[in-house]
């Protein structure tokens, strides 16, 4: 992405941000709240409309709307902070609704694949429950399976563990870690620095709508280049 700018009134949420991601790369975006990290990934699939700038995925420009945008969204998976599962559908239908309605996949095939995905997130036994009957961690893993069902080339995670109780964070991060090891391209907005250290190929730090630092984990943590980043790491990692 090139020169992405987005403001809310006078507040500049993103200020001409440039960012590149290689295929299979796992990128963690961190930064203080209000720094623009969520806005950044929401601009990728245009849940937020940037004022200016360009997003390209596999050489294809992401347009402002219409069929192209919809086609693109089908290839970019997104996981939300609040899970946003469809509460009226059982877990399995949450996963199959995309392939069936949007790709015209048959019921049986979609169900088979959904079960396989549920096994991957270790929830095969919960297929016929409603989302409200699951814990937050389980719901978030279903949300990951739902996004994977569309066979995305890129997964976006918008603070996937921020709404979870501490004991459930690990089960979600484990699934994400495994996903990364299988070669999925991922952009993860998170405060989980342990996850960033283990899973990320690269970490970028945002402040006031700009990317102020970016480096592989070891360099990022051990040798922070920017004073604002040093302060952030001090705060978040404790003493």
């Amino acid at each position, binding site marked *: 992405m090139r020169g992405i700018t987005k403001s809310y009134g006078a507040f500049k949420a993103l200020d001409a941000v440039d960012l590149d991601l290689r295929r299979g790369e796992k990128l963690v975006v961190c930064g203080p709240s209000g720094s623009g990290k969520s806005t950044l990934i929401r601009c990728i699939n245009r849940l937020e409309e940037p004022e200016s700038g360009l997003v390209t995925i596999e050489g294809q420009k992401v347009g402002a709307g219409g069929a192209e945008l919809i086609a693109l969204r089908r290839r970019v998976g997104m996981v939300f902070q609040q899970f946003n599962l*469809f509460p009226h559908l059982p877990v399995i239908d949450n996963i199959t*609704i995309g392939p069936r309605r949007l790709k015209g996949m048959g019921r049986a095939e979609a169900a088979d694949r959904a079960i396989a995905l549920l096994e991957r997130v270790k929830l095969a036994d919960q297929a016929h429950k409603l989302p409200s009957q699951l814990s937050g961690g389980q719901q978030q893993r279903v949300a990951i399976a739902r996004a994977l069902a569309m066979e995305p080339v890129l997964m976006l995670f918008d603070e996937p563990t921020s709404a979870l109780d501490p004991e459930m964070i690990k089960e979600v991060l484990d699934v994400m870690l495994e996903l990364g090891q299988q070669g999925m391209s991922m952009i993860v907005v998170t405060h989980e620095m342990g996850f960033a250290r283990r899973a990320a190929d690269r970490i970028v730090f945002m402040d006031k709508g700009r990317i102020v630092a970016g480096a592989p984990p070891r360099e990022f943590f051990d040798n922070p280049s920017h004073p604002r980043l040093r302060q952030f790491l001090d705060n978040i990692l404790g003493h």
Partner: protein
Amino acid sequence: MSVSLTSFLEVMPPLLKAAVVTVEISVLSLAFACVIAPPLAIARMIGPWPARFAVSVLVEAVRGVPPLVVIAFVYFALPAIGLTFNGFWTGVAALTVVGAVYAVDIVRSSIESLGRGQKEAALALGFSVWRAYLEILFPQALKRILPPLTNELANVIKASALLSVISVNEISHVGHGLIFETFIVAEVIIQMAILYLVIVGCLSALSRALERRLAH
């Protein structure tokens, strides 16, 4: 003022017949209203601006004036555009308009109460905006639509009494006629009131039962 059982029974057959008309008109009108309300509501939320504007004007205009004005308008307008219905179907048309604009708001506020996340999740999966509303948001909103819709059914039944001004043979029109034909007054009025209470009560109970079944 005295009430006699003989008079009460004497006016019962015509009033019961009229009660059937009241039920038919109310149920048909609400059914038609329910069919046209969701597309209108969604058009109002995400349609192109001329559609949004047109639906908003229609809804605000119909809600802002007494139902009698809407009934008069439909009564005069249908023949003026070449549609000649009998009283019954004119009444259904008028009540459908009244019911639909309220249903539009019920649908809209139910969908809006779902919160932003549901819409975003559907969009992120790759649903178009229209399909997200029709296939993801609207089915979820159904559960929240039913309770206010039960209420709306009662309102439509009560509004159907106003069709007496265009001579539809429902309870109020027949009852009013009976008063002047038979000079039986109190028995007719009391019986009309009872009939409405029974109809409103039964249909509301029925629709609440339906609500419960759909909730599971």
